[in-house]
């Protein structure tokens, strides 16, 4: 072992180049593993918050959404209809979104998104009120001007002071803050959640959008989570029927399910994984070939050394062990350096692209495992060549 380290040091230029190429390969692979793990972790976090038993129905077909239009297709009445038609649904929560509303408290101003919903909203999204309280059924029925605000809104308008009970102006309509929502972070698509204001849906429909029937979306949660796939299909057919959609027309709404979210995130990660993956594997293969060739050269150069080792009692397998040891030491150091590079590189990736990365022992283990495989694979042939050297040939004057 010590001998092998010495030899690695003695041929340091050679070792250095091999090490760098292995390091580059391993770092890309480690980034991939981390990215994959990060994506899955993020996906499951999001699904966890989204609710693994939830379906979100958004108005407008995918096509119209892609064109930037938000046609009104979902009626508030469907909420009750769904509640009646599906025995396993335990919560249906309507929502209406209004974007870019100016909000102010005294001289502090803020621009944000307002959501109208029912008293079930916080339960539907598993999003607790941490200060004050939720609004009530009475607030909904009474079309009252009360609201919940997100953490960011609270920070922007109130700083350190307690917002509960205070009045804010939401597009010049005074609204009393009754509660503050917990910190929520961002969605899978990169939307901020902590900048929201939630008001009773009746208030938003009447006072903000002047609408009596249509809502933006609703959310349904089911007790039979394992049948969600079937429920999704039933809900789709039910809504088409309610909307009297012709058979040849696409759905005038979109259903977002937990699996759809996972698919989206995995696809997002997939392209990066494929790109870095190919680069990484090429790096490793090149590194392997470079290593193997340099070692073959080295075996030729060190014929006398091998001969003398054999003469003083080294068995063939001792020689194999020595040369494999040298290559594995180089690739292992390459693996460690690569892992460090990956850690640094992923910082950069997360910094520029908000990309989910998660380094665990798995990324490290995969990196080290691969570096050993490269070390052994590229060292094996030169090592066995070395072991075949006959001492009397090697030490002939």
């Amino acid at each position, binding site marked *: 072992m010590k001998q092998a380290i010495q030899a690695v040091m003695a041929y340091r230029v050679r070792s250095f180049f091999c090490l760098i190429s292995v390091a580059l390969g391993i770092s890309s692979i480690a980034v991939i593993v981390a990215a994959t793990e990060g994506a899955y972790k993020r996906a499951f976090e999001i699904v966890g918050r989204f609710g693994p038993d939830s379906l979100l129905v958004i108005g407008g077909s995918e096509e119209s959404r892609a064109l930037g239009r938000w046609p009104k297709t979902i009626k508030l009445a469907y909420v009750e209809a769904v509640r009646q038609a599906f025995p396993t649904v335990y919560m249906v929560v309507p929502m209406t979104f209004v974007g870019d509303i100016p909000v102010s408290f005294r001289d502090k101003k803020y621009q944000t998104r307002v959501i109208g919903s029912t008293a079930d909203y916080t339960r539907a999204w598993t999003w607790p009120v941490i200060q004050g309280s939720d609004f009530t059924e009475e607030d909904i029925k009474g079309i009252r001007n009360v609201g919940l605000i997100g953490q960011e809104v609270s920070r922007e308008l109130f700083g350190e002071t307690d917002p509960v009970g205070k009045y804010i102006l939401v597009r010049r309509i005074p609204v009393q803050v009754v509660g503050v929502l917990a910190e929520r972070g961002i969605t899978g698509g990169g939307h901020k959640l902590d900048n929201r204001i939630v008001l009773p849906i009746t208030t938003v429909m009447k006072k903000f959008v002047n609408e009596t029937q249509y809502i933006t979306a609703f959310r349904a949660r089911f007790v039979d989570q394992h049948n969600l796939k079937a429920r999704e299909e039933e809900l789709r057919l039910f809504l088409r029927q309610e909307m009297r959609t012709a058979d040849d027309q696409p759905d005038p709404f979109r259903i977002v399910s937990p699996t759809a979210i996972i698919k989206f995130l995995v696809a997002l990660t997939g392209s990066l994984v494929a790109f870095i993956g190919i680069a990484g594997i090429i790096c490793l293969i090149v590194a392997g070939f470079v290593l193997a060739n340099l070692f073959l050269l080295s075996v030729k150069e060190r014929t006398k050394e091998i001969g003398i*080792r054999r*003469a*003083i009692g*080294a068995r063939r397998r001792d020689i194999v062990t020595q040369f494999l040891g040298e290559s594995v030491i180089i690739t292992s150091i390459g693996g460690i350096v690569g892992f460090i590079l990956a850690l640094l590189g992923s910082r950069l990736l997360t910094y520029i692209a908000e990309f989910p990365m998660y380094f665990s022992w798995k990324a490290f283990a995969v990196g080290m495992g691969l570096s050993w495989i490269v070390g052994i694979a590229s060292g094996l042939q030169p090592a066995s060549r070395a072991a075949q050297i006959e001492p009397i040939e090697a030490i002939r*004057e």
Partner: protein
Amino acid sequence: MPLCSMENVTKTYRLGSQTVEVLRGVSFGIEQGEFVAIIGPSGAGKTTLMNLLGCLDVPTSGRYMLSGRDMSNLTDDELSLIRNEHIGFVFQNFYLIPYATVFENVLLPTLYRDHNTNEAAKLASRLLEMVGLQERDKFRPGQLSGGEQQRVAIARAIINNPELVLADEPTGQLDSKTATEIMKILARMNQDGKAVAIITHDVNIASYAQRTIRMEDGLIV
């Protein structure tokens, strides 16, 4: 019983389609603690004889006994072990490992056997002291003179306490003064009880030996 003995040993090499008979029936022995010189012109088969004595190669026919054991049918691994435990080599070109220190070069043979690291290190220091290089143990071979390198090689040859030391032209690369120093060290090893066989074509060097074996054309004459 002699330390080693050869009975009618032959060795032929194939060179393409030709076979070359290098040893043509050699019989002789070396006693425990004996100092022999093998002399003869180049091409007489001295190095081949040395390779067989040192278990670097096996005879084509005949029998070679070392310490009462037949060396003719051993496996490669077994021969490695024999070389490690029973034989010390000293070469004309020293053959030290260039990237290892003097001390590590001396320790080299102990790496290939079960050994106590501490004891081996102590022994290596003692041997370096014996050959007068204790101050240079951290040097690399390239920083030493030829005579010094050969002294390191001698220390290496005896660290596993072999019964037989084989030296192939050990002074071939050295000036006469240094050669004398090296021969004195070999002679002292012999006085300590080791059998020493040196190959040389220098009659002066051969004079250190108790017995001279002359080879010519693949035979002992």
